[in-house]
């Protein structure tokens, strides 16, 4: 048990003095609010004269004092119930929450149990349609790989792509490469390049990026100052982004203050409640939280995952966009990281991940995300299993490669046309799983391209012109349409994304209207079909096709109605209706011909003579075996189904009894089929052989094979002729 990967994770003893407590520390203040002549004179137990800078900003800008008295008079339990109750409209929760102090909202959220948090999230997220964000980065800042990976992300359905750099000066190149790549695969994907503010703002002003989220808030004044900001500088920065028409959200989340030894003995949820109140106060439209870089800190304490989800719900209740974390690998255990993310997938969020690592873990310059490139198939299966929309869709493998090659090619052409760089590794980048597959690359060329973009002041219009000149007018028009759409400003509203028709989906245009079963977001039929049609899905027609490709015509030629044998050495091998007719390969991968050959050889070794008889009247192996035994001169028979299940029967047994049985068809080897033949012969001779044993395994045999079994049995069933007599089959084809 010690070897399980969960034991690599750190689990902390709760210690309120360090802030190592999820939802309620002794030092958390009791909620309070005293308003005098429209001015807050006490908040959460602190008198106005003692307000720190966060308190001041929240008290002056963050609270709706018209509703505050009503809100603060609600008991924590009554308030908590409103969050969960489907019949209390979201708007009512939003109205009341606007009057809640940080301590009040933290206490209320701490009351919600996991299923209640899921309910609250379902109801309270701002946008009706859930969505998802991807991280697209690589160790080399290779533009062609970034373009290909951005195309991959856009193709899978991510509506925001966040990139960043290992080398700060590469930032402009990363922004351009991601913009081009995403545009090739889908219109309207928002691009972010997470770097320091001045550089990030510059990229946005030039239209090369379209949103920002690396504007960090912290829950104590000390850590806020250590982060080199104040609520006023952040409020100003928030306006600065909007003034350049850029969407932005702030970042916060549990654990940041603990990591800085600055939690002031407060719980994570309380400190985050201050951040979220401040986010609303400074006028940000949304918050990225749910631990973020501190997710593992929250995960190390009791109820830590509950705290992370409560953070997201708090954001939603404050009428802000939630970008819901899940972006840091919070455990070495696949089970724990799935457990962390699943409830948010089930509830649906504005962005289920604030960065699903759509690239290789090693290429993620934010650090590995909680889900990464290798988890995309798992995530798509999760969506399908629960019938929920996590924002992603299946991309046919051929289409994916085409898009990646096109994105890399377009990027190379644009860089060449603009005189930025001359890259020729288009195919290498398109085929690469990650930067390790690129071999030696010219990183100085990347730096040169980035510097050229910056110093020449290239804008999105230069990219549009280059796309056009390089023979890609469709992508040029797509990029330009996005520029026009941004200028309308609709995407500055809460929870805004563009859909692929460039319509804005936001709190304003696509408000969440969940009010219990039968309401709220349901995927449209076309979207549901997309969710359901993962690439691994197989049906009977697929199986019939793959089996018929293996057909051996004339293998088991019918020679007439089978008669009862007379020799004591006669052993019948009874086969099912479709074996050697529509079914040619057993679940183990062995051909039915080889299986029959081994059985016949085993019989022969022990001095018996086998013959093969088809029983078209039934698919039931017990019936087939018993009927075969009754035809056998020896009274012993083998029964065999197309899927490979086999048994030894005797004419005087009940149909469902048998002498020996291989029930785990996928694991039966040719040697074991030979042994079954030999044992059947031993039974025929009146001996008592050591029974052949099923080869059991610890694999998910049923998960792997049941869908195939169902299809195989359908092929058998289709061949059934009720009441038909058994048919003797020629062995010539087996020789």
């Amino acid at each position: 048990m010690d070897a399980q990967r969960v034991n690599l994770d750190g689990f902390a003893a709760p210690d309120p003095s360090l802030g190592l407590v999820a939802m309620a520390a002794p030092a958390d203040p009791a909620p309070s609010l005293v308003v005098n002549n429209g001015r807050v004179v006490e908040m959460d137990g602190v008198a106005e004269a003692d307000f720190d800078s966060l308190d001041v900003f929240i008290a002056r800008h963050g609270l709706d004092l018209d509703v505050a008295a009503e809100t603060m008079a609600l008991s924590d339990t009554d308030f908590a119930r409103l969050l969960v109750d489907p019949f209390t409209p979201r708007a009512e929760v939003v109205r009341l929450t606007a009057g809640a102090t940080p301590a009040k909202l933290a206490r209320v959220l701490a009351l919600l149990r996991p299923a209640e948090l899921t309910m609250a999230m379902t109801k309270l997220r701002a946008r009706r349609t859930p969505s998802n964000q991807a991280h697209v980065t690589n160790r080399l800042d290779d533009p062609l790989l970034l373009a290909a990976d951005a195309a991959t992300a856009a193709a899978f359905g991510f509506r925001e792509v966040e990139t960043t750099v290992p080398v700060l000066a590469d930032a402009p190149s990363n922004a351009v490469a991601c913009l081009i790549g995403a545009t090739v695969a889908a219109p309207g994907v928002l691009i972010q390049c997470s770097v320091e503010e001045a550089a990030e703002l510059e990229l946005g002003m030039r239209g090369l990026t379209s949103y920002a989220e690396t504007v960090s808030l912290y829950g104590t004044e000390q850590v806020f100052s250590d982060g080199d900001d104040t609520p006023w500088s952040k409020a100003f920065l928030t306006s600065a982004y909007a003034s350049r028409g850029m969407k932005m959200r702030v970042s916060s989340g549990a654990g940041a203050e603990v990591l800085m030894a600055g939690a002031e003995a407060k719980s994570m949820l309380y400190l985050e409640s201050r951040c979220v109140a401040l986010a609303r106060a400074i006028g940000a439209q949304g918050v990225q939280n749910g631990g973020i870089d501190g997710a593992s800190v929250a995960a190390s304490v009791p109820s830590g995952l509950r705290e992370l989800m409560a953070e997201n719900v708090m954001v939603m209740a404050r009428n802000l966009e939630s970008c819901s974390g899940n972006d840091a690998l919070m455990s070495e255990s696949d089970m724990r990281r799935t457990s962390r993310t699943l409830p948010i997938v089930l509830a649906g969020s504005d962005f289920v991940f604030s960065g699903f690592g759509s690239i290789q873990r090693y290429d993620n310059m934010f650090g590995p995300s909680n889900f990464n490139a290798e988890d995309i198939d798992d995530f798509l299966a999760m969506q399908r299993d629960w019938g929920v929309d996590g924002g992603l869709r299946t991309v046919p493998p051929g289409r994916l490669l085409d898009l990646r090659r096109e994105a890399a090619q377009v990027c190379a052409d644009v860089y060449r046309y603009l005189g930025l760089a001359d890259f020729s590794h288009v195919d290498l980048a398109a085929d690469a799983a990650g930067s390790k597959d690129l071999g030696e690359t010219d990183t100085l060329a990347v730096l040169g391209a980035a510097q050229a973009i910056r110093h020449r002041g290239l804008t999105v219009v230069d990219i549009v012109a280059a796309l056009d000149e390089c023979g890609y007018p469709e992508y040029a028009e797509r990029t330009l349409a996005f520029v026009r759409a941004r200028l309308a400003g609709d995407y500055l509203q809460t929870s805004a994304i563009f859909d692929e028709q460039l319509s804005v989906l936001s709190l304003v245009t696509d408000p969440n209207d969940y009010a219990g079963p039968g309401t709220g977001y349901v995927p449209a039929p076309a979207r549901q079909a997309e969710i359901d049609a993962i690439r691994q899905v197989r049906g009977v027609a697929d199986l019939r096709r793959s089996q018929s490709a293996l057909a051996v015509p004339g293998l088991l030629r019918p020679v007439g109605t089978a008669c009862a044998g007379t020799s004591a050495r006669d052993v019948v091998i009874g086969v099912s209706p479709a074996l050697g007719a529509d079914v040619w390969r057993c679940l183990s991968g062995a051909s039915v011909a080889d299986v029959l050959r081994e059985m016949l050889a085993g019989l022969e070794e022990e001095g018996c003579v086998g013959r093969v008889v088809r029983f078209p009247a039934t698919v039931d192996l017990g019936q087939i075996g018993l009927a075969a035994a009754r035809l056998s001169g020896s009274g012993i028979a083998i029964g065999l189904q197309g899927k490979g299940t086999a048994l030894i029967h005797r004419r005087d047994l009940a149909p469902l009894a048998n002498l020996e049985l291989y029930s785990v068809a996928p694991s039966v080897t040719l040697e074991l089929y030979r042994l079954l033949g030999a044992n059947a012969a031993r039974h025929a001779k009146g001996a008592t052989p050591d029974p052949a044993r099923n080869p059991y395994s610890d694999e998910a045999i049923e998960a792997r094979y049941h869908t195939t079994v169902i299809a195989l049995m359908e092929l058998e069933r289709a061949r059934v002729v009720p009441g038909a007599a058994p048919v003797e089959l020629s062995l010539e084809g087996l020789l």
Partner: protein
Amino acid sequence: MNNETRALSGRPVDDLTLDAVRVSEVGLADLRIHPQTLERQAVIAQQHGNPQLAANLRRAAELTELPDEEVLAIYEALRPGRSSAAELTTLAGSLADRGLPRNAALVAEAAEVYVRRRLARAAATSSLPPQPPASAHPEPGPSSPPPANSR
């Protein structure tokens, strides 16, 4: 999209066509958002239960008139320990005089609070302008250790 939407340059957004790009007629000011657009969005935000977002968009509308360098310089001036209270008060006055009353109020409030919370630079040291570029004090980025939430 609203047909009346114009870029900061005054140019109707619908004029931003591929043909216009082909004859090199599109400049940076054609890509910038217009203050009236921000004001319109502020009204919508107010109607949808978020007066703080509305206030932010109105501050933003004022800032569309400032050049990028000045916007970044004001941000820098508001960071902890960069400005004395007097300098912030002066800055607020200048913003008010230039028709940016909402931003002026924000800076004036900072001046008041920074003194009490020791976020102002001690008045004894040198005077404010010119501000260093903000990039001299980068937000800890993804290549830096915590505390920044770098995702």
